[in-house]
């Protein structure tokens, strides 16, 4: 207590977890509440000679929309709720936010999550909870709840409270998938355009790369998954890992490893909902990893990057599928404990 610690700093607090799951469990686990249901980037690292045409074209037809200067209460109006939120998967989030200081709004799986600063919270008059990580307040409203029906007093109150707050006006990215396949998802953009907001159509960016003759780590019981995740990240960014420690870099390929002839690296960037992530994971889980001849299992990897709102720890979920029925899942997220 007398003199502070100035040499051995502890790293920023983040929560790292590894699980071993069965394949069906992994499919349900990935878009979980902890990780958030929106992803900013998806990377697939696929060693071996697989048939990956389906994976390559997966996000070819998808699009999301950027809406400028849209107030929150427009998304809660009766027309919008009945036409879009209740008739499809509606995902939206505010853009360019720093989780610690900025107000933000996220709509996922029928829930509206407002994260507002103290001043706005006191003016709003809606009840919420204090956020653990920052000094803000969280207000969650379930839009699909029966209590939130259009003629209820609760709905009128929420609309009245949000309508007058000019500070709750943001730039958004939105995404909508109707339950009814006959309706075009772009009708959301048409509706918002009709209201007079500027709507821009965006497509996920896609990048593909093939790396030949490279050492690929294997998953055995002693392997530290976080090392393999680090290797996957380095490879996806085009960093080569030498076999022995170098003067400039101590990064090596984790043991045990094998020489793979071909590694496919696919990268997407954009706005992906949990539903899309789950579908892509389903496709990857069906693929078979390359056989190495040894008893130690090879893998295929799919990594999801969440939106980096808290700049201290990035949220990552990395899934390794093996030839057997087992998946290794690694997650890293902002610590849910109070930071002293």
């Amino acid at each position, binding site marked *: 207590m007398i003199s502070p610690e100035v040499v051995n700093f502890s790293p920023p607090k983040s929560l790292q977890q590894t699980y071993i799951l069965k394949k069906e469990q992994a499919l349900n686990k990935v878009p979980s509440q902890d990780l958030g249901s929106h992803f900013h980037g998806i990377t697939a690292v696929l060693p071996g000679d697989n048939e990956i045409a389906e994976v390559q074209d997966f996000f070819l037809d998808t699009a999301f929309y950027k809406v400028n200067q849209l107030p929150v209460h427009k998304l809660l109006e009766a027309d919008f709720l009945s036409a879009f939120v209740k008739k499809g998967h509606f995902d939206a989030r505010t853009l*360019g936010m720093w989780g610690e*200081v*900025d*107000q933000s709004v996220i709509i996922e799986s029928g829930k509206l999550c407002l994260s507002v600063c103290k*001043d706005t919270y*006191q003016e709003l008059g809606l009840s919420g909870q204090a956020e653990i990580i920052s000094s803000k307040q969280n207000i969650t409203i379930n839009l699909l709840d029966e209590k939130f029906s259009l003629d209820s007093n609760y709905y009128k109150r929420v609309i009245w409270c949000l309508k*007058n707050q000019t*500070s709750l006006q943001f730039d958004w990215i939105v995404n909508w998938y109707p339950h009814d396949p006959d309706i075009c998802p772009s009708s959301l953009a048409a509706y918002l355009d009709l209201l007079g907001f500027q709507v821009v159509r965006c497509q996920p960016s896609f990048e593909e790369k093939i790396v030949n003759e490279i050492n690929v780590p294997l998953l055995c019981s002693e392997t530290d998954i976080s090392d393999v995740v680090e290797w996957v990240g380095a490879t996806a960014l085009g960093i080569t890992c030498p076999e022995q420690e170098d003067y400039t870099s101590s990064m090596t390929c984790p043991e045990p490893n094998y020489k793979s002839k071909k590694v496919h690296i696919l990268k997407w960037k954009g706005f992906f909902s949990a539903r899309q992530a789950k579908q892509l994971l389903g496709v990857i889980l069906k693929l078979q990893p390359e056989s190495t001849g040894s008893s130690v299992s090879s893998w295929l990897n799919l990594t999801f990057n969440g939106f980096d709102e808290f700049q*201290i720890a990035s949220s990552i979920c990395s899934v390794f599928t093996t030839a057997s029925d087992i998946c290794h899942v690694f997650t890293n997220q902002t610590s849910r404990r109070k930071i002293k």
Partner: protein
Amino acid sequence: MNTVQGFCDFNIPSQCSPTTTLKDVVLRAVKLGYGAIAINTTIDEDVLIITKKKGNKKNEAIEEKKDIPPPPKLNFTEKDLDLIKIHGKNVKILHRLTVMLSDPANTQKLIQSVNTKSYDLIAVCPTTSAAFLHAAANMDIDIITYHPTEVKELRFNRKHYRQATERGIFFEIPYSFMLRDSTIRKKIIQMSHLYHSIGKSRNIIISSGALTPLELRNPYDVANLGLLLGLTEGESRSALNLSGRSVALHAITRKTGKCVSFIVETDKLVPEEQWKAKEMRDAEERLLGEPEPKKMKMETAKI
């Protein structure tokens, strides 16, 4: 009431380096993500000393000249900065007055001056222990700051530190000095460790004091620097964020007194709050049956 939001840098000297302009420094701070910036005017102690010699008109002339200067006029507005801000609601610019103080007896003029009241924040840089104790215990200020070259040695104990924190005074650590010279860097680290060992690093704010745009750092980098200054991870981030808000609120209470509500004319409400006046009129109509013009309205304070 318009309070500060986001990361704060409450020490941008108005007299910046001759190679650059104040506007450049402020623009860079806004681009880095600061939401509240204070333009700092530092005055020496001799401005406060009242020397009276009877019959000597020369001295009187000098005395008039040495009044506390009014806040500097800026060639940019908050609206200009809003255009380039990278996040948050809006950018807030405050004016801050810093007084170098060695003798506690010289504070009378500071309180009496009209120009003092036009500053938002008032800070004191005590150069002696006596001045430090007076500032911590009696003076009506927001920030006690530290200048590594002007201050020789400060002695204070836990009781004095607690007196200051209980009165809502914050201790400032300027980091740009640490970029200039290694001996000064040692002094700053030593001082901040003193705050840690005596006061458990309560009520600390970290600010820049940057003379050039290059001396400014990203708020998250500054928060990491806080680890070196004896703050924990959470403390160093709140030293930039929450503590800044507390300082700004403390400065408002210095002007208004401690209050739970205050009164604003409906015509003078900011555009974001105009709806309150409208709601008041609607409520009145519902209650009385007929409209009746009313000029004043109550607004709850958010302290």
